[in-house]
């Protein structure tokens, strides 16, 4: 078996073991109803995490994701409720704003040589502040289009509901995986994360790729914001606070290296599902308080980081042995 797939396999196995253990305790977790809700409830996180995967594979980080989700929600809600725009027009406007925002961050990161960590931190303040300047309150969205999309679902055998947003997340993951592993842009992203200097010497358009990566991340965060506003039927400037950390967590658990150059979009999907499993398990248990979610996720992060180190140390040793032979 391909050695580079080992961390991904480890993630999948750990997810399956955790899921089996959870089902053993609460057989209800196996129903399609729960599985359908899994996808719906984590749709916005999953979509944002796809963008984060690209950023992290390229060796960067995007802290502005949660703030962009909040800003998009507020912008869309204000355009629809206060100005009477059609939701689709509002979505288009939000995409344009998010793309410009991401591109600006990419430009600053590449041309001003400021670390992504700080640029996207400033971006986070800007987006969160911008949302609060527009409005401080939660703006409800009451539009026939919204209720139509929210009630769109396919009934699964066993009473489960596969919602539109859940399917949308799966679609984003499939497209993301194809883009990452099968396109020129995808190989540029990996090359950049592996070693930016060698990548540029070998003809990778570093400036354009960097701008595209952060634009992609912001656009996907915007899509996540739209999904979040469909989910809650409202826009709130403090929505999705800290989602960037959940997204980073999902990416790390999914086996992507934070040093860049190595990772899988599918791994992030498993990471998101694992985070969802932790939350659902705690809700099912009922006696555990919500803070256990954070502790368990922290523990999982630790577990996967150590696991990655061990797997990579082992494969590096394997390579050395192979070289000697």
């Amino acid at each position, binding site marked *: 078996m391909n050695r580079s797939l080992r961390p991904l396999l480890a993630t999948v196995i750990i997810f399956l073991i955790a899921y089996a253990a959870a089902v053993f305790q609460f057989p209800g977790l196996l129903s399609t109803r729960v599985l359908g809700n899994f996808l719906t409830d984590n749709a916005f996180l999953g979509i944002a995490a796809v963008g984060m995967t690209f950023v992290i594979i390229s060796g960067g980080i995007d802290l502005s994701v949660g703030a962009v989700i909040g800003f998009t929600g507020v912008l869309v809600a204000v355009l629809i409720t206060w100005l009477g725009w059609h939701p689709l027009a509002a979505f288009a406007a939000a995409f344009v704003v998010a793309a410009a925002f991401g591109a600006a961050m990419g430009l600053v990161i590449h041309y001003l040589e400021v670390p992504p960590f700080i640029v996207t931190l400033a971006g986070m*303040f800007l987006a969160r*502040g911008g949302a609060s*300047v527009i409005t401080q309150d939660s703006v409800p969205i009451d539009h026939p289009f919204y209720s139509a999309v929210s009630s769109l679902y396919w009934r699964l055998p066993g009473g489960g509901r596969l919602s539109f947003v859940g399917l949308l997340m799966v679609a984003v993951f499939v497209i993301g995986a194809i883009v990452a592993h099968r396109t020129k842009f995808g190989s540029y992203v990996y090359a950049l994360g592996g070693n930016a200097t060698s990548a540029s010497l070998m003809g990778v358009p570093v400036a354009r790729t960097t701008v595209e990566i952060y634009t992609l991340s912001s656009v996907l965060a915007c899509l996540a914001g739209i999904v979040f506003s469909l989910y809650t039927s409202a826009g709130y400037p403090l929505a999705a606070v800290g989602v960037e950390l959940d997204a980073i967590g999902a990416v790390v658990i999914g086996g992507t290296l*934070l040093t860049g150059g190595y990772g899988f979009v599918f791994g992030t999907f498993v990471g998101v599902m694992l985070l969802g499993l932790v939350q659902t398990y705690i809700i099912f248990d009922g006696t555990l*308080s919500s803070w256990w*979610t954070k*502790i368990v996720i922290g523990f999982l992060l630790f577990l996967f980081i150590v696991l990655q180190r061990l797997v990579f140390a082992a494969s590096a040793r394997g390579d050395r042995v192979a070289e000697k032979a």
Partner: protein
Amino acid sequence: MTRIPLARLVNTQTIALVGVLLLNWILFPGFFKIEWQDGRLFGSLIDVLNRGAPVAILAIGMTAVIATKGVDLSVGAVMAMAGAVAATLVMSGQPGWVAVLGALAVGLACGLWNGALVALLDIQPIIATLVLMVAGRGIAQLITEGSIVTFSDPTLVFIGTGSFLGLPMPVVIALALMILVTLAVRKTAIGLFIEAVGVNRSAATLAGIRSRLLLVTVYAVSGLCAAIAGIIVAGDIRGADANNAGLWLELDAILAAVIGGTSLLGGRFSIVMSVVGALIIQAMNTGILVSGYPPEFNLVVKAGMITLILMIQSPFAGRLLTWFGRNRRKGAS
């Protein structure tokens, strides 16, 4: 007697701080008025110092960590944990000093944990400290059982709101800590070692620096600083709020260090300038409050300010300056 060279006090950060303070003064004429009341100083300027103290304390530890090419994302969560431990200890009948020592021990343990992950397991600092950032707040909530634990212990309240020589206690603590750490890094070789490890860890190790021990120490100091900030914040509100204590302060602390000229790529740092950076951030916050602008502008102004300061400090601006210089010389010749 050694003279402090005037040129060293005139730099981007000091000018920025003076600029923000003057702006505050224009917006609010009473800004520089300081009164002596009940044996301590009062006024907006003292308030900036007092409110800025927790971030300044975090920034002191953060600066040392960043100088080793690391970052400590867990300081906000450690603050929450330290506050929770101190509050629960006094509520269970322990004296104040035991609570303080307990909170400091928690901070030290957190720092050692981070340091062990970074130095012994060779995990990237941003990930290693992310673990505690996520889990730490959960642990703090576990300690306080999700509620805000209020107390009236005189020792803790004195640390948060008392005064010494007319200055608020948080300011005195921050000042003492700043002097202590600055002396430690500038009067001994530790500062040089930190910079060496930040520039090139393997080269530093080959040159005989015990980089693992140094890294663990630096993260431990950051954890201790976070615990001190946590005790101050808890003492100030006379309660431990696991949900909100220190929330997002790690970002303010990193920002303070970066504004202070510490390079995120490691190897260059100044403790005093980071404290100045923390004061710039707080002066901006206070300025927006006293000027009567809605506080929502706060984040936008902060974002604009960071971008501006970073642009001035970026290598791009440096190249632009040399380019201009060359052209001017060309024009002259």
